[in-house]
C-alpha cells in the first residue's frame, strides 16, 4: 500500500470523496424527487372529502372520488395481519434467544428457515396464499363446516392477512430478537435468583422490558403490509366493492392495489392522474402515520419503563 505524502495535491482523495459523495447525493436526490413529485401532484387532491368519501359517485372523477374504503381495507388487513404475526414472531424470537442452544442443528435450521422466508419473492407468497389458504384450507373448511358450500374457498380478508403475516414474520422475529438480546442479563439473573421460573422471568421481566423493540418489529411489519400488493392480488383485494368488508370472509379494497389498478386500467390517464397521485400520497401518509403511531407508542412505553 502506498502511503501518500502530504506533498502535492491529493487528487485521489478528492476523487474518492467526490465519487462516494456523488453516490450518496444521487440517492438522496432520487428520494427527494420521488416524494416531492408525489406530494406536489397529490396534495391538491387530498382533501377531507377524498379521504372520507367512498366510491359511490364516480371513482374516476377527480371531484367525486374518495379513497375511504381503500384506507379502511388497508387498515383492516394490517390489523388482522398484526394479530397473527406478532404472537408467532415473539414466541419464535423468545425461543431463539432464551431457549435455543446456538450451535444445535435445530437452531441453525430455524435460523436458515427464517432467512429463507425473508427472501421468498412476494408473488410466490401470492401463489402460496392462493394454493394453500384459499384452495386447501378454505376448501377444507367449507367441506367440514358447510358441506361444500362456498364460504371460505374464495379470496377473503382472512386469507390475505394470513399470507401477509407469513411474509412479515421474519421482520418481527429479527426485531424482537434484537430487543430481547438488548435486555441486560442481570435482570434475568436477578429474577431467577429470586426464585422465578424461566418462563415467568420471560413473561414478567424480559418481555415487558423488550416491548419497545417488539413494537419496532410490529411497525416494520405493518409498513410492509400496508404497501405490498402482489401477495394480496389473488388472495383478497378487489377493485370495486359496493360496501366495506364487515366479515373476514369479505374481499376488501386496498390502497396499494387501487394505485396499481388506476395506473394500468383507468380509462383516461390524464383525467385520473390527480386521483392517482392523491391515492399514492394517501398511501404514503397512511404508512407514515402507522409508523409514527408505532414510534410514539414505543417511546411512551420506553419512558414508562425507565420511570416506572
Amino acid at each position, binding site marked *: 500500500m502506498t*502511503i501518500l505524502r502530504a506533498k502535492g495535491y491529493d487528487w485521489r482523495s478528492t476523487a474518492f470523496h467526490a465519487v462516494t459523495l456523488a453516490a450518496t447525493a444521487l440517492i*438522496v436526490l432520487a428520494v427527494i424527487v420521488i416524494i416531492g413529485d408525489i406530494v406536489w401532484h397529490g396534495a391538491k387532491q387530498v382533501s377531507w372529502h377524498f379521504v372520507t368519501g367512498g366510491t359511490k359517485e364516480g371513482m374516476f372523477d377527480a371531484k367525486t372520488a374518495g379513497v375511504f374504503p381503500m384506507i379502511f381495507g388497508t387498515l383492516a388487513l394490517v390489523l388482522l395481519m398484526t394479530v397473527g404475526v406478532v404472537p408467532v414472531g415473539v414466541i419464535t424470537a423468545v425461543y431463539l434467544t432464551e*431457549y435455543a442452544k446456538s450451535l444445535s442443528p435445530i437452531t441453525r*435450521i430455524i435460523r436458515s428457515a427464517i*432467512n429463507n422466508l425473508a427472501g*421468498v419473492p412476494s408473488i*410466490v407468497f401470492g*401463489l402460496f396464499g392462493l394454493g394453500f389458504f384459499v384452495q386447501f384450507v378454505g376448501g377444507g373448511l367449507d367441506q367440514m363446516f358447510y358441506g361444500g358450500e362456498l364460504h371460505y374457498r374464495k379470496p377473503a380478508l382472512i386469507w390475505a392477512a394470513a399470507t401477509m403475516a407469513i411474509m412479515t414474520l421474519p421482520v418481527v422475529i429479527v426485531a424482537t430478537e434484537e430487543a430481547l438480546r438488548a435486555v441486560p442479563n442481570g435482570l434475568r439473573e436477578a429474577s431467577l435468583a429470586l426464585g422465578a421460573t424461566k418462563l415467568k422471568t420471560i413473561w414478567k421481566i424480559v418481555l415487558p422490558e423488550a416491548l419497545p423493540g417488539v413494537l419496532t418489529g410490529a411497525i416494520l411489519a405493518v409498513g410492509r403490509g400496508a404497501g405490498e400488493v402482489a401477495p394480496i392480488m389473488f388472495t383478497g383485494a378487489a377493485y370495486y366493492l359496493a360496501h366495506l368488508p364487515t366479515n373476514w370472509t369479505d374481499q376488501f379494497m386496498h390502497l396499494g392495489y387501487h394505485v396499481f389498478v388506476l395506473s394500468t386500467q383507468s380509462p383516461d390517464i390524464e383525467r385520473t392522474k390527480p386521483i392517482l397521485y392523491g391515492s399514492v400520497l394517501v398511501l404514503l401518509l397512511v404508512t407514515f402515520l402507522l409508523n409514527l403511531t408505532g414510534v410514539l407508542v414505543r417511546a411512551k412505553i420506553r419512558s414508562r419503563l425507565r420511570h416506572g
Partner: protein
Amino acid sequence: MNERLTTDTVVLPKAQRRRTPRRRWAEWLVERGIFLVSLSTILMVFLIFAFVAREALPVILRKTNNARSATPVTAAQVSTMPPEQLATYLGVTIADLKKYNAETVKALVELKAEELSQNVSADSRVNTTSWGWMLRARQWVGYDKPEYIWQPVSEIPKYNIIPLFIGSLKATLIALIFSVPLGVGAAIYVSQLAKPKIREVIKPVIELLSGIPSVVLGFFALLVLASILQGMFHYSSRLNALVAGVALGLTVIPVIFTISEDALSTVPSGYGQAALALGAAPWQVAWQIVLPAALPGVFAACVLGFGRAIGETMIVLMASGNASIMSGSIFDSCRTITATIAAELAEVVFGGNHYRILFLLGALLFAVTFVTNLVGDVVVHRLKRKLEGAR
C-alpha cells in the same frame, strides 16, 4: 402462609412456594409449545415450496398432454362408442359421464368436435406442456425460424419459459449494476467519510426510500421515470428493461446500503486507526482497509439485493413493457417471471395447464432465490472464516 422466622431458615418468596408439580407441568407444556411454534417457521418454508410445487406437479412429472391428436367424433358415432372410450375422448371421468343426460353429452361432443377442428397442423399434435417445448426453440407454424415463444393464450398454447428467465435476469442485472455502486458508495461515504451530523441526516433519508412501497415506485417509473429516461437516451420503446431495472435498483438500494453500512461500521475501529497512525489518508483507510474487512457483509448485501430484485413483482409489471422477447438490448421491453405470474394468474382456470405452468414458474423462482440465499450464506461464511483465520 406462616413464616416461621428462625435464624437458620430462609423465608421462601412466594414464587418458589408456588412451584408445585402441577405448575411445573404447565410450564413444561408451555415451553414445549414455544418450541413447536418456532418449528413452524421451518414448516412454513416447506409448505410454501410444497404447495406451490404441488400445483405444478403434473407438469413436472410430464403427466399433462395438450396434443390434439384425436379425430373428431360425430354425434352418430357417439351411440356406438363404449363409455370408457367416450370418457377419454371428452376428457372426463366415467363417473362424471354417467351423471350427464343425453342432451349434455350431445352438447359436449359438439363442443369437442368444434375444438378439435381448430387449427389442425403439425403444431396441434405437439404436447406444448412437455419439458422439451418449454425449454427448446421451435419453428411454429407461421414463423420463419425456430423461436422461443411464450404465448399461452392461443390456438396452440406456447409455454416456452426461456424468454421469461432472460427477462428476469436482464432486469435484475440492470438493477444491480445501478444499485450496487450507488449503495456501496453511499455506505462507504456515510460510514467512513461523512461527519456525524451529516450521517444523522442521510441515514434516515435513505431509510425513507425503503419505506416507499414497490407499487408506488412502479407508478413513479411508469409515469415519470420512463419519460425522463426516454428523454435522455432517445430510444423508441418507452417501457423497457432499463426503466424497470432502474426502478428495481431504487428498491434494492436501501437493502444494499443498510447492510453494507452496518458491515462497514462494525469493522473494528482499531484497523482504521492503525492505518491512520501509519499515515494513510481517510480514503485509503476506507478503500483498502475497511471495505475489504467488511467484504462478507457487503457481499451478503449484494446477494440479498439480487434476491430482492429478481423477486420483485409490481415494478416490473408496471414498467417493463412485458414483451416476451429474447433480446440482449436494455432498451427493449422484457417480460419477467414475476410479472408473468401476476398478470396471468387471474385469468387461468384452476387446474388447467396454464395454471400449473404459472405455479411451475413460481416454484422455479422460489428455487432460484433459495439457492441464491444458500450460496450467499456459504460464501459469506467462507469469507468470514478467511478474514478471521488470516489474523
